[in-house]
């Protein structure tokens, strides 16, 4: 009788392992669908990333080049004396330049009638540039010198097709006829495009001089700010997390702290900005527009992020490691610093870099404490000055440019974004290298 009842289970027809039954089919289909969703999501993500990258590069690339006129000329001591004896000295220098330019064009077989005003419109105050140069380098008098003068931003935009001849209205900035001269100079190779170092190394310029605007000073501002954020938020954040996670008793009070930290992470950054304005500038009288204050504000903003991610990575360390350390007679602190923290380090670094990246891109709080773009007028002279002298930061600088009326600043804003992303990438790469280091120690 037992035999019979046992066998009922075996009565079902034997089926090959190679034929899928209905349940397996359904499960496999679900798995395939899930994979397809995943791949679709990634594809969409990649598509938008590509669109973003292309549009940033397309719009920002012009910021890295500029149009220059290269003219070689020799100024004799007699020329200098003659020019200095005149009432309009810079005008005399400009005449020397125009003569040299004329010669260069004639050598190339082109004859043009110059309107000296056109040179001023196209190339700016050529005369004073030359005069300053010779006063600074008297040794160059009488020797051939190659002057490379940046053309007005309208010329850039005319050459890359953004500005057409028809769109130009005759004004003190540019006449339609100036474009003939531009065309000639381009044809003869006197005018050409070159890499715009000023954009990388320079500081912000006035609203009427987009050609002279550079992001360098605000890169330095951002750098000092990130230094403040890193030096303050990493140790404070990690120490706070270790205390909360490993040492603090579990009670109402620590629960309250925990909830508050989570909430702080969600507070809009502009709130931190106004807090910084009230506390650091109005109450503590720290200097306005200083990267130090910017760094302090961004530290407040970054701390919750670092604390949350550090606590998560401390929690992820298996408790058996702590038991093992305590079991051989290590103190709590030894177990944390010798065993738990090294294992949590990759996670802590990831959190830190996310926090820093957020801080690097933050604009709103900086505007409130006066780190607007146009204060970035020069480089700090020295480390202390780097922290306390008025400066801007990259995102604030980009914002300032984007808000300016002159359309030439628009491409500067895009170019600034490229520099900002490059800065971010460098930071991430350093973090990844550090993380590899720690991971290799198992």
């Amino acid at each position, binding site marked *: 009788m037992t035999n019979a009842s046992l066998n009922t289970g075996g009565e079902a027809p034997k089926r090959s392992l190679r034929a899928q039954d209905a349940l397996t089919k359904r499960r496999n289909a679900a798995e395939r669908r899930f994979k397809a969703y995943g791949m679709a999501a990634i594809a969409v993500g990649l598509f938008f990333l590509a669109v973003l990258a292309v549009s940033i590069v397309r719009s920002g690339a012009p910021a890295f080049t500029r149009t220059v006129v290269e003219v070689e000329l020799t100024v004799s001591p007699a020329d200098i004396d003659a020019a200095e004896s005149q009432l309009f000295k810079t005008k005399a220098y400009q005449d020397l330049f125009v003569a040299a330019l004329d010669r260069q064009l004639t050598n190339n077989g082109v004859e043009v009638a110059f309107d000296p005003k056109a040179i001023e419109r196209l190339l700016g105050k050529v005369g004073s540039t030359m005069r300053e140069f010779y006063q600074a380098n008297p040794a160059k008098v009488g020797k051939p010198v190659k002057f490379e003068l940046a053309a007005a931003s309208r010329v850039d935009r005319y050459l890359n097709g953004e500005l057409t001849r028809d769109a130009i209205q005759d004004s003190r900035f540019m006449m339609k006829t100036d474009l003939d001269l531009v065309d000639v100079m381009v044809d003869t190779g006197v005018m050409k495009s070159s890499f715009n170092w000023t954009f990388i190394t320079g500081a912000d310029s006035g609203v009427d001089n987009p050609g002279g605007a550079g992001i360098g000073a605000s890169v330095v501002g951002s750098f000092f700010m990130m230094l403040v954020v890193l030096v303050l938020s990493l140790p404070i954040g990690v120490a706070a997390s270790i205390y909360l996670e490993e040492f603090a008793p579990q009670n109402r009070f620590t629960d309250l702290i925990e909830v508050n930290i989570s909430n702080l992470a969600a507070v809009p950054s502009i709130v931190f900005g106004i807090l910084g304005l009230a506390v650091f500038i109005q109450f503590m009288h720290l200097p306005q527009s200083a990267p130090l204050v910017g760094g302090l504000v961004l530290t407040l903003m970054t701390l919750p992020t670092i604390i949350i991610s550090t606590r998560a990575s401390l929690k992820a360390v298996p408790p*058996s490691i702590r038991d093992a350390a305590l079991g051989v007679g290590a103190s709590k602190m030894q177990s944390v610093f010798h065993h738990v923290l090294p294992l949590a380090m990759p996670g802590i670094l990831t959190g830190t870099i996310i926090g820093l990246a957020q801080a690097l891109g933050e604009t709103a709080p900086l505007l409130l404490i006066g780190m607007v773009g146009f204060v970035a007028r020069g480089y700090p002279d020295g480390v202390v000055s780097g922290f306390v002298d008025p400066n801007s930061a990259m995102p604030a600088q980009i914002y300032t440019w984007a808000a300016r009326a002159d359309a030439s600043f628009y491409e500067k804003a895009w170019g600034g974004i490229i520099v900002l992303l490059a800065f971010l990438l460098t930071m991430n790469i350093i973090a990844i290298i550090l993380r590899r280091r720690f991971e290799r120690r*198992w």
Partner: protein
Amino acid sequence: MDQKDIKFRCHGVQVYYGDTHAIKDVDVDIEDKTVTAFIGPSGCGKSTFLRCLNRMNDTIASCRVEGDIRLDDEDIYHRDVDPVQLRAKVGMVFQKPNPFPKSIYDNVAYGPKIHGLAKNKAGLDEIVEKSLRRAALWDEVKDRLDTPGTGLSGGQQQRLCIARAVATEPEVLLMDEPCSALDPIATAQVEELIDELKQRFSVVIVTHSMQQAARVSQKTAFFHLGNLVEYDDTNSIFTNPQDPRTESYITGRIG
């Protein structure tokens, strides 16, 4: 039979995990230079009781220990006792192998290092080699001391943990199922080590193997549902159990 000193004197020990009463009023005296085996069905509280002896239960927030546990006549739960100092004296091998994610060498050297047991590198090397030999692991790992301890097999990891525990020269060694992942040869080696350790120390071992308890221990305690049912010489427990529950457990009828 000669009378031995009492190492641990436990009286009226109660352990609670929150509302769960895991150890109920246990009295037990653990002798010095003796191997004591804790046996009993799974979940009866052997590990819990063992962890009371070096205050590892302090690390579990919900765990509460009551009663009196004395090591060499000092209350180990006294306010002035530093559990860290206690754990240096009372070493432990855990039920699940838990090597540090560091090199084999560092695993063993860590305890001696933080306790300042070696004066120099050579001294430390010596301790590491001796400990690994005692744990019957030396021959397998002597050529790869700088590879991660977590890369060893389960049984090797457990022996590494044993080496780590003996490296600090504890006065009492608590072993929670040290041989559950070991093959018969390694088991024999660990049992040999236990035998050697008992010349100087007191060893408490939790085991699910009756044969092992009978082979290595002089005293056996049988736990059941948080109660200490019977505690006597190993011989008497296995040949002449007083309690019917003990008898049915060792003959394989409950568990």
